[in-house]
């Protein structure tokens, strides 16, 4: 009896041990839990890490067609004095649509009100600045300075020769700065979601800095983000204003649509490792629609357009942050505007009738 009872117990115990051996090892505390789907910002929230959102950086490029007329004067004392007699500028021209040869020929056909100087008529005394500099140079060389003469002929002791130089070309200009009105909504969105947001210092473009203005890593190293763990850095791609009038089908009315559209290139950078955590292109749109607006002297409100563009930009940013698993999708997807299915109306059951043959 005893032997027969022990055998089944022994075999059950052995099989249980085998099963335990085959099963996967249990997770221990301290071991990393696979969290591929866990939003990064949830960790940031838990660890109370901070995010700084910069204003939106921009670079505005332009080109001017420039014309310079220069007179170079030479004297027997080997002193050479140059002075700009006149210059002409044609602003607003786009370098892509302009050609330097065409510009020059345009200038030659007296499109610009330029006074050309006859070299033989040149008198240093007619130009006080040149006369002053000439006197100073002659004095420095120990040559006696002749008194200023009312005579139109050059002074006997000074032989002067003039050379007229005309220059034309395209002068490129670049303006760097920050747009301050479009980041507040993004900061607000992160604050509302429970993230710690710190203020970034305002970046001021330095002279001859060029595209180094966009060097966010240098700014991080310089401590311009007040110890933030992450920096959300945005650079304006394009900004445009539109004003269109269209007929509204099925009506006798028209709609005037005034729009402000902007595209911003965003990067979220880890300030410790300089790793780009999230990167995307976000879009903001402000739109004002006026029915039958054209011809009524309607003027759109820029403030309204900017606010709308700012809010839509923040919404798009939230959507992209959720897409790249940085924030939870609940921030990105507001419940407004969803068409939930409703229960059927309580109605007479005879409303829907089936007709049979």
């Amino acid at each position: 009896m005893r032997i027969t009872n022990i055998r089944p117990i022994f075999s059950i115990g052995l099989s249980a041990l085998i099963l335990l051996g085959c099963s996967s090892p249990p997770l221990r505390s301290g071991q990393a839990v696979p969290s591929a789907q866990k939003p990064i910002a949830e960790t940031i929230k838990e660890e109370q890490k901070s995010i700084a959102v910069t204003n939106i950086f921009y670079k505005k490029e332009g080109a001017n067609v420039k014309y310079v007329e220069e007179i170079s004067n030479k004297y027997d004392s080997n002193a050479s004095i140059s002075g700009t007699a006149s210059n002409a500028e044609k602003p607003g021209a786009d370098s892509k649509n302009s050609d330097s040869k065409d510009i020059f020929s345009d200038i030659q056909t007296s499109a610009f009100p330029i006074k050309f100087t006859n070299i033989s008529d040149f008198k240093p005394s007619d130009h006080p600045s040149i006369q002053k500099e000439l006197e100073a140079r002659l004095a420095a060389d120990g040559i006696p300075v002749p008194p200023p003469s009312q005579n139109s002929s050059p002074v006997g002791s000074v032989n002067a020769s003039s050379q007229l130089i005309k220059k034309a070309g395209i002068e490129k200009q670049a303006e760097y700065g920050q747009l301050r009105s479009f980041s507040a909504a993004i900061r607000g969105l992160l604050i509302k979601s429970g993230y710690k947001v710190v203020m970034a210092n305002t970046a001021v473009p330095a002279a001859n800095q060029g595209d180094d203005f966009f060097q966010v890593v240098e700014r991080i190293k310089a401590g311009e983000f007040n110890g933030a763990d992450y920096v959300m850095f945005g650079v304006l791609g394009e900004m445009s204003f539109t004003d269109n009038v269209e007929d509204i089908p099925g009506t006798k009315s028209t709609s005037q649509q005034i729009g402000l559209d902007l595209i911003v290139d965003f990067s979220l950078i880890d300030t410790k490792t300089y790793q780009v955590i999230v990167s995307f292109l976000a879009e903001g749109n402000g739109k004002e629609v006026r029915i039958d607006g054209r011809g009524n002297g309607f003027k759109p409100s820029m403030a309204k357009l900017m606010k709308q563009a700012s809010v839509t930009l923040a919404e798009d940013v939230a959507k992209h942050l959720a897409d790249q698993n940085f924030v939870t999708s609940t921030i990105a997807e507001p419940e407004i505007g969803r068409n939930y299915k409703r229960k059927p109306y309580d109605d007479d059951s005879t409303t829907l009738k089936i007709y049979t043959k």
Partner: protein
Amino acid sequence: MNSSYPNKLIYIFSGLALLALAACSGPQVRYGDAKAVETITVDYGSTDLQSIAEAMARSLLQTKVISGSKDAPTVTVADVKNKTSEYIDTRVITDKIRTQLLKSGQVRFAVNINEMQNQVDELKRQNQSGLYKNSTVSKTGNMQGAKYRIEGSISSIVKQTKDVKDVYYVFNLNLINNESGLLEWADEKEIRKFATR
């Protein structure tokens, strides 16, 4: 014979009085069943309208685009072309289908092109008159665009002899995805009617 003469007069006067009474009375008015089958003529009638609308609404609600959608898709009604020789108000058919679909709660309808003038006038009144409190104004630029549109046609074939008139109607309805241009659903309802002398 003399006694029968006054009797005849009485009969004549009575008959005339009855005729006068009948002439003075108006037509008899009664309520009927709106859903009752109507077979007065072979022309398009109320029973046809009801059967078409019911069949189409039921079929449309069973389609995967609507029954399988998590949200209620937005739909607008485009034209239903009348290709018959009769005068048929096709708007009544589409309105009836729309009512039945709306009652189901499975679909939401955006205003169609025929209703746009009223919609635009109302938006203009609220937004541009300056009379309304800003927070209560239905703002311009927030209308919802329909994801799908319903459009179709009704056609007929009529054959007639001296004693028999045969009419065949076919009503086609399509559900089209506005963005992709894809035909998501289509169905038809056939009706045959004939009259004999």
